[in-house]
């Protein structure tokens, strides 16, 4: 395509954005700060220069047809029941250099170990509270804290075996962790299927770049799950993946992962507690399950302990878990580590448990529960991003720089009446990456979610899910808010 017209489009869009000055200068993954194509993108940039826009659009349609035929869809809550949608896919990859990835890897591993040490501590001796590093009430009266987990000994002392860490970039060297998803992070199937699709459509691109494979993820996941099987069992553990069912938004991923690992995909009503074990109802009668990779929330796990109206879980499951007769992955109660009110203490947490400074930075965060910080937030709403402490999926948040006056005033009301329910952060100039849009190729903001596994060792596939905000200037990348995805390449030296 005419690459220059892409540039022009980029300039038009950027000057037309009514956002803060900082956003206008967003770092571009391909073009840096405007000083030429960055090294990891050399081959892709050259390739892009030889492509015609219509051909690229045709390829995009082809990709969408592949996704729809394969059934890679997700349900949007609140829309027509069981409506299945495609997450928009962009064919221009997001590329990470080998050295950048090594740094991210070190930071991620440090974080995963620290977060799990924190959870173990919180559900045991609570040294970090005694040391005065975290206010007690922030933990104890936090709705993400699960008192039933006190004193429970999970295998290997691990709570969150699968963590999706949301990372954003603002310049050549600045990466920030936006969020640690320690409960049941989703999206890894897109990491795998996006790669499949790209390799199918653009084999020549892979011939020109040394892209690290990501298809070791299912094997790594299986090894991780097996490594946390109950200690007292003999033989190979039986593993099953618990899904809420096919109307759940992430059902495709549940069945995809079960298939890739070769484990049963079960629903709550397929399971019973019998003879002191968790069993699944098979064609040959009940069969024992040792490790349950659950993709339902804590609240629904066991109606006898958590929500009594849950039909997604299994009555009696939690007692078995406490007794060490079945392993639950991720463990209940892990939400305490990705709670947004705890988030601002993460650098402290990392130092406390690892004795070292965090390798990956946190975004500066204002806790609206603190009066002086609340005052600052109220005075600077147009510049800040305000999030609900327990929100997720991009719902219930305010992006100050792009919000209308009315929206800002509505949030001011909410903040004044229920301050402790909110945190605020400066609006980061998330990096952009060239993305195929209707008018051509234009920069769009993105983030990165690598999926790290923690069992007998830390395992990290070289890649992740890159989410991209498809609206010009938008900083909200969540798929539930119209965000799309890109294939994520980690280059090898």
């Amino acid at each position, binding site marked *: 395509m005419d690459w220059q017209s892409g540039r022009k489009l980029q300039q038009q869009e950027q000057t037309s954005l009514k956002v803060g000055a900082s956003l206008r200068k967003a770092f571009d993954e391909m073009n840096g700060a405007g000083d030429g194509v960055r090294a990891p993108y050399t081959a892709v940039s050259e390739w892009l220069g030889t492509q015609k826009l219509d051909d690229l659009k045709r390829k995009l349609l082809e990709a969408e047809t592949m996704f*729809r035929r394969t059934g890679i869809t997700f349900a949007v809550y609140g829309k027509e029941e069981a409506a299945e949608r495609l997450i928009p896919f962009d064919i221009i990859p997001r590329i990470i250099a080998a050295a950048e990835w090594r740094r991210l890897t070190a930071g991620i591993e440090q974080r995963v170990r620290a977060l799990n040490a924190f959870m173990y501590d919180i559900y045991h001796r609570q040294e970090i509270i005694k040391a005065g590093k975290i206010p007690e009430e922030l933990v104890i009266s936090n709705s993400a804290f699960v008192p039933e987990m006190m004193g429970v000994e999970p295998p290997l002392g691990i709570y969150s075996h699968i963590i999706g860490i949301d990372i954003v970039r603002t310049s050549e060297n600045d990466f920030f962790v936006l969020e640690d998803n320690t409960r049941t992070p989703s999206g890894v199937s897109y990491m795998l299927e996006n790669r499949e699709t790209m390799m199918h459509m653009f084999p020549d691109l892979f011939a020109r770049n040394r892209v690290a494979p990501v298809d070791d993820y299912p094997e790594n996941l299986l090894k991780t799950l097996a490594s946390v099987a109950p200690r007292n069992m003999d033989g190979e553990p039986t593993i099953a993946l618990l899904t809420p069912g096919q109307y759940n938004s992430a059902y495709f991923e549940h069945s995809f992962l079960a298939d890739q690992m070769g484990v049963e995909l079960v629903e709550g009503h397929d399971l019973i507690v019998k003879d002191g074990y968790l069993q699944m109802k098979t064609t040959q009668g009940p069969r024992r399950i040792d490790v349950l990779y659950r993709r339902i929330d804590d609240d629904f796990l066991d109606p006898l302990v958590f929500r009594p109206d849950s039909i997604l879980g299994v009555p009696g499951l939690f007692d078995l878990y406490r007794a060490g007769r079945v392993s639950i992955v991720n463990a209940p109660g892990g939400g305490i580590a990705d709670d947004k009110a705890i988030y601002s203490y993460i650098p402290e947490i990392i130092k406390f448990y690892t004795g070292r400074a965090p390798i990956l930075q946190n975004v500066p965060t204002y806790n609206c529960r603190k009066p002086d910080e609340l005052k600052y937030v109220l005075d600077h709403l147009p510049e800040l991003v305000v999030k609900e402490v327990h929100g997720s999926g991009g719902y219930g948040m305010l992006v100050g720089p792009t919000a209308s006056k009315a929206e800002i005033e509505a949030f001011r009301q909410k903040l004044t009446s229920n301050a402790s329910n909110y945190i605020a952060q400066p609006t980061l100039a998330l990096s952009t990456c060239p993305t195929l849009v209707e008018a051509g190729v234009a920069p769009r903001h993105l983030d990165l979610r690598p999926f790290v596994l923690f069992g007998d060792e830390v395992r990290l596939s070289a890649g992740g899910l890159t989410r991209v905000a498809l609206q010009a200037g938008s900083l909200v990348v969540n798929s539930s808010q119209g965000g799309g995805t890109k294939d994520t390449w980690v280059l090898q030296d």
Partner: protein
Amino acid sequence: MLGRTANDLYWLARYVERAENMARLTEVGYRIVLLPRDGDGTHEEWRSTLASAGCAQGYFSKFESLNTRDVINYLLFDFSNPSSVKSCLAAARRNGRAQRTSLTRDMWESLNSAWIEFSNIDPASISAGELPRVLDWVRSRSALYRGALLNTILRNDTFFFSQLGTFLERADNTARILDVKYYVLLPQIEMVGGGVDAVQWAAILRSVSAHRSYRWVYKENYKPWRIAEYLILNQAMPRSLRSSYDEISVALNDLANLYGARAACHDTVAATRALLANGNIDDIFQSGLHEFIEDFIIRNNRLGNEVAEAYHFNG
């Protein structure tokens, strides 16, 4: 394998087979309705089509009279008819999606694209001339799914439960056609003879795709007792009761070997298969064709229930 998985795979296969049978029955009914005939009654043929499809009660609770457009819509596109092609394809896809991990990619994609394409068809846009094309398409999609199954699936319980679903449904369908049409095969009708009967005989054979193969097997014109024999007892005819029961028997024995256990369903299938393997068409006519078919349908339903029981379809 989960009992729920076995149940879903079994019904998935039944729905795919049923969609194909619906298309075939619709095609045959439509051919007869198109024929020039004396007097009224051109629409009457739909009555037996609906009965063969097991849809008569549902149709008449919705419509007062037989009308070609209404019948076709009801058999192909009506979601309120649980056996319409649309309902079958939707149910097949729903079951397939629930058991995505048990299906190969080829199987899933053929199911998924069949549903996507069919649900995009606007019934109002289907003119009389286009109907055969739509019906051919349904049959070809069923064939594509079966082909994907046969070519790509592991020969384990996934395959065995799928085979059970396909052939129980097929046996049920062939038996139902015979149940509705048995009177045109009875001897006294043959005495009356005439063009209408020949049309009806051909229709029966067509509704199980056997009007050509009949001549290869029997080397003579349609004879009603031969037609009955062909559909009930012939081992080579792929939609006969006999060959369906051969396949069911193989699948159930494979399951018994795999799991190392037999159940009531194994005795039932052996008894019914023996009845078909040792049967003689003269004896069947002697003791009553209709009674034989009714008895078979009861046995077939019982077998389905026993399979569900033996393999914990409901947990």
